[in-house]
């Protein structure tokens, strides 16, 4: 039997009338099939480790553990696909030891009426770096929870998120970055476009903890609103308990801005074509950012399919 499950709750909540402090999903815990867990330990290989994660049954959960030993570098590409009317949770737990670099690329291909809950938990030691490229061109509902602990001094995190929401799709994102160490850095960029009656919620929390001196946190969001019935909720939070830090946030939400439109039009490109190009832009940018030709091609093919 399914029960309400509360996920993606912000560490610091706000007005309840906004109904955005958390997300509620229907989940059948009893009948959740546990998929074989993966354990990846970084060797010094330039080749990315690729994992295909396909749903089994109505409810399933996959756990992926990634550990990078001191000074190691690893790239993991997770290809997730969920069939219609199915629900899948993918939990990736990451430990980055001193001076390690971990890149996690998550690409999904989901059918309509499906639900995918992507949960990423990461803890970094001194001078470790974590990068995520999360591309969501799918058709189903997406819930994304990234929790990053910048525990070690000089550790850093870079997050790139790209989506294209359409039809009645619901995209729900919760990002929490805790700056514990000194000189820690995070950079978050979440861009996307919403068509038809798609809904997107973005909660981003940069928590500059006491003692994490000279930390820098930066988040940017651009949402291109294209559909008549779209809904966008953005809650970008900066919590700060340290004097010598910098926290910045910027969000731009709306139609194609005048400046961009003028540039396109001055080259003879109509508003309609400009909007088409820009609705793909967030995902195309990330496809190139994956640095993996096969993945890039797959993403662009998925994009063609949904458009």
């Amino acid at each position: 039997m399914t029960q309400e499950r509360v996920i993606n709750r912000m560490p610091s909540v706000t007005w309840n009338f906004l109904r955005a402090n958390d997300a509620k999903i229907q989940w059948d815990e009893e009948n959740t099939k546990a998929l074989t867990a993966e354990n990846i330990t970084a060797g010094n290989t330039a080749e990315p480790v690729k994992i295909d994660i396909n749903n089994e049954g109505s409810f399933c959960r996959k756990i992926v553990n990634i550990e990078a030993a001191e000074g190691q570098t690893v790239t993991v590409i997770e290809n997730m696909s969920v069939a219609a009317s199915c629900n899948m949770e993918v939990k990736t737990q990451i430990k980055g030891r001193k001076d390690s670099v971990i890149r996690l690329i998550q690409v999904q291909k989901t059918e309509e009426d499906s639900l995918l809950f992507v949960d990423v938990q990461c803890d970094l030691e001194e001078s470790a770096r974590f990068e995520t490229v999360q591309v969501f061109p799918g058709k189903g509902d997406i819930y994304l929870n990234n929790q990053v602990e910048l525990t070690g001094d000089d550790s850093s995190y870079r997050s790139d998120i790209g989506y294209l929401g359409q039809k009645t799709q619901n995209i729900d994102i919760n990002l929490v970055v805790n700056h514990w160490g000194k000189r820690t850095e995070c950079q978050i960029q979440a861009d996307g476009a919403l068509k038809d009656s798609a809904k997107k919620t973005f909660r981003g929390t940069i928590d500059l903890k006491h003692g994490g001196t000279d930390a820098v946190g930066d988040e940017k969001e651009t949402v291109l609103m294209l559909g008549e019935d779209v809904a966008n909720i953005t809650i970008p939070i900066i919590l700060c308990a340290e004097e010598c830090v910098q926290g910045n946030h910027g969000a731009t939400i709306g139609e194609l801005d005048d400046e961009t439109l003028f540039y396109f039009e001055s080259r003879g490109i109509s508003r309609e074509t400009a909007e088409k190009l820009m609705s793909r832009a967030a995902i195309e940018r990330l496809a190139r950012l994956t640095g993996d030709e096969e993945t890039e091609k797959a993403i662009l093919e998925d994009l063609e399919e949904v458009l």
Partner: protein
Amino acid sequence: MGKDNLLEIKDLHVSVGEKEILHGVNLEVGRNETHVLMGPNGTGKSTLGYAITGNPGYTVNSGKIILDGEDITEMSVNERAKKGVFLSFQNPLEVPGVTLSGFIRSALEEREGRIKLWDFIQKLNKTMDLLNMDRSYAQRDLNVGFSGGEKKKAEILQLLMLEPKLAILDETDSGLDVDAVRTVSQGIKLYQEQCKGSLLIITHSTKILEALTVDVTHVMEKGKIVREGDVSLVNEINEKGFENFGKDAE
């Protein structure tokens, strides 16, 4: 009229917000001619460029802009572009997610319908080589992370690919080193020769003009054209500066 002009601007008054910037500009540019527009900062040179291009932020209060015998004063930005108006931006916009090549291709397709990909790539590569641009730039996001010089080259690349009838170059040479100015200047020369287009070059310096044949020089002050002449005017301004030049005119 007599002469068969490509561009005719008649008594053009243009405002930005509440403020009128252009107070009755008259200007004619013949086919395949190269015109230079000079003048002190803040006199309305860029405003004229934007008004011809049709930027919605610039309101035409009165007067006419005629391109190729057709009144384009009320026309939308992209319609004008399709008729052959091109503006090279002073600070080209960065557009993440749209590649330089994808952008140019879209612009061509809007005008001509589906184009042959092979021909397009051939021409793009050839033009990029001429401009000393690394071919990898074609697949990079439009202007994102480009240096000042690369951005200007990307503008000239668009000019040569789109082959407009009228190219307005707004301070295309500003902030460029000597080599980049030379390359850009060669690109413009190519446009003059191959596309047989007309040019209106807004500039401060003469370096970019060295390789080009200038037909007419216009001097703008306080929102009006105050003097017109041949290429010698450019040299005169450079020797005397605008201040003294203005006094001479009175």
